[in-house]
């Protein structure tokens, strides 16, 4: 087969996919920002990419040094004292964090803490993590402003609560402005504060989880720190903690002795190993490059632009797609409930129709507390022209729903395949390639 046939084959496939190099990728809570190509160049340097994972520490000083410095930068952003770069992504970071919580209470002989509190707006991985770590989930109500309800918190806080998992800004994009009081209440009853760092893009360089009273935070390098994601990884979900939790962090740790770096295996209270070798090292190189390219001011400007872009998007859309909890910081959750009532067109249909306009669909039907939810996070990397193109498309679809609803309910029309039977796909799972397949 000639080379150009192979090139054409893969180019054709890449065009059937949607990716952030083609157009805005408006998933909410996922921070699908553009990934600068310089990150890729650094990760491909042969000294990094060709390094054998069994190379002795003295032959891997550059890589260990990068990891150490990245750890310090991330601790600075998070307002924390110590960090592990091992966890492979958000959900594994969460599990690491909750296992740290468990180890901390056990080390103090505080065995009775078996419940972890989670607000009803939280991402589904939070309760799943808690259950996997052997704790019991207690769901807390959100109030009318979309924030954690303090009375709901007070009513469940007692000596069997291990901690609270709270994303900030939360999954509605709303900042938990009572966070200091919340931390005080949780700490007062002996619990720990865990922050899911999914939405750090709204805060970095401006406010630090550590200063809000959080004890543990995981950071999604593949979201906030601009390493590619969306294709199933690899990602990285480092977990940063306050000093009192540092002894429990995964093994091996990383330490600086004079001018050289070494792996630290002597960690008797550690929860153990979380990932093979030292985590997804290539992702760490990308995140380090990103932070070094931005610098301190750039990190802050990134968050400011992310919030500004979302404010602009919200202002353009809120008349047609109301915001039950108001404009969020870096993302907003719109409701298609009124549109559905008037026209019969569901948020699912709107999302499918967006594909015809050349965009990826936004996050829909999540968080669960917003009816016909449509969640969009424009990110800081989009220009005003691209934001307008997306807003124009959504407004055009709302018009279509009023005048020609079948056009929307039958979408997508312009994609290689049209409306798939998601129900059947779920009921008759077929995820393994078979050479006997006719298709």
């Amino acid at each position, binding site marked *: 087969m000639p080379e150009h046939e192979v090139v054409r084959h893969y180019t054709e496939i890449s065009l059937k996919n949607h990716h952030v190099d083609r157009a805005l990728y408006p998933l909410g809570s996922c921070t699908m920002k553009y990934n600068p190509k310089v990150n890729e160049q650094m990760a491909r340097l042969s000294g990094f990419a060709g390094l054998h994972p069994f190379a002795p520490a003295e032959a891997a000083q550059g890589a260990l040094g990068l990891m150490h410095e990245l750890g310090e930068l991330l601790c600075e952003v998070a307002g924390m004292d110590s960090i592990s770069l091992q966890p492979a992504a958000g959900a594994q970071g969460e599990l690491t964090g909750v296992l740290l919580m468990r180890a901390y209470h056990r080390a103090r002989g505080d065995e009775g803490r078996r419940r972890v509190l989670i607000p009803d707006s939280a991402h589904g991985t939070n309760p799943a993590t808690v259950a996997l770590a052997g704790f019991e989930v207690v769901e807390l109500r959100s109030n009318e402003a979309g924030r954690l309800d303090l009375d709901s918190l007070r009513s469940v806080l007692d000596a069997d609560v291990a901690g609270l998992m709270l994303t900030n800004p939360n999954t509605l994009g709303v900042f938990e402005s009572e966070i200091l009081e919340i931390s005080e209440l949780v700490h007062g009853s002996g619990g720990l504060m865990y922050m899911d760092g999914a939405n750090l893009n709204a805060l970095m360089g401006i406010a630090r989880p550590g200063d809000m009273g959080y004890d543990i935070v995981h950071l999604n390098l593949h979201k906030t720190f601009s390493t590619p994601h969306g294709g199933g990884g690899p990602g990285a979900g480092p977990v940063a903690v306050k000093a009192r939790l540092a002894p429990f962090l995964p093994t091996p740790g990383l330490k600086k002795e004079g001018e050289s770096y070494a792996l630290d295996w002597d960690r008797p209270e550690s929860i153990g190993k979380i990932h093979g070798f030292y985590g997804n090292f290539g992702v760490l190189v990308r995140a380090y490059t990103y932070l070094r390219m931005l610098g301190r001011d750039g990190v802050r400007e990134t968050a400011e632009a992310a919030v500004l872009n979302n404010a602009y998007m919200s202002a353009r859309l809120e008349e047609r797609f109301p915001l039950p909890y108001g404009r969020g910081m870096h993302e907003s959750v719109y409701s298609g409930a009124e549109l559905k009532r008037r026209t019969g067109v569901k948020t699912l249909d709107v999302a499918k129709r967006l594909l015809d306009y050349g965009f990826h669909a936004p996050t829909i*039907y999540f968080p669960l507390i917003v009816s016909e939810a449509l969640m969009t996070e424009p990110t800081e990397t989009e220009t005003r022209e691209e934001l307008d193109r997306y807003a124009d498309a959504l407004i055009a679809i709302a018009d279509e729903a009023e005048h020609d609803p079948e056009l929307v309910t039958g979408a997508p029309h312009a994609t290689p395949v049209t409306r798939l*039977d*998601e*129900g059947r796909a779920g009921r008759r799972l077929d995820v393994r390639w078979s050479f006997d397949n006719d298709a």
Partner: protein
Amino acid sequence: MSEIPESLKYSEEHEYIGPTDADDEVIVGITDYAQGELGDVVYVELPAPGDTFRRMDVFGTIEAVKAVSEMYSPVSGEVLAVNEAIDEDPALVNSDPYGAGWMVRFKVEDASELEELLSADAYRLLIEE
């Protein structure tokens, strides 16, 4: 738009409670409105005959393309039978929620709990809110 039969009672958690030929036995499923909101049902986890529940206990889960929801027992009582057909074909919950898509047959422990359920009119008001 959703079908709400007059002959049934309803819970605020979107279950219906239907009569059987025995006074103290009822059929429970989810309403037409609930299946419409959930979208295509992919899997339903039901209890086993002989299990007992208090009112508002979780008696099963329902997994749809959009979300996974828990189902709350509208009355206290014992499970007499479950609809095994929906294990094979969960789409019955979408296509015929009040018929072939029924879920559980309960023996009611306390008949007064039935009095607290919603009428068809009251349920219609609830979902129109």
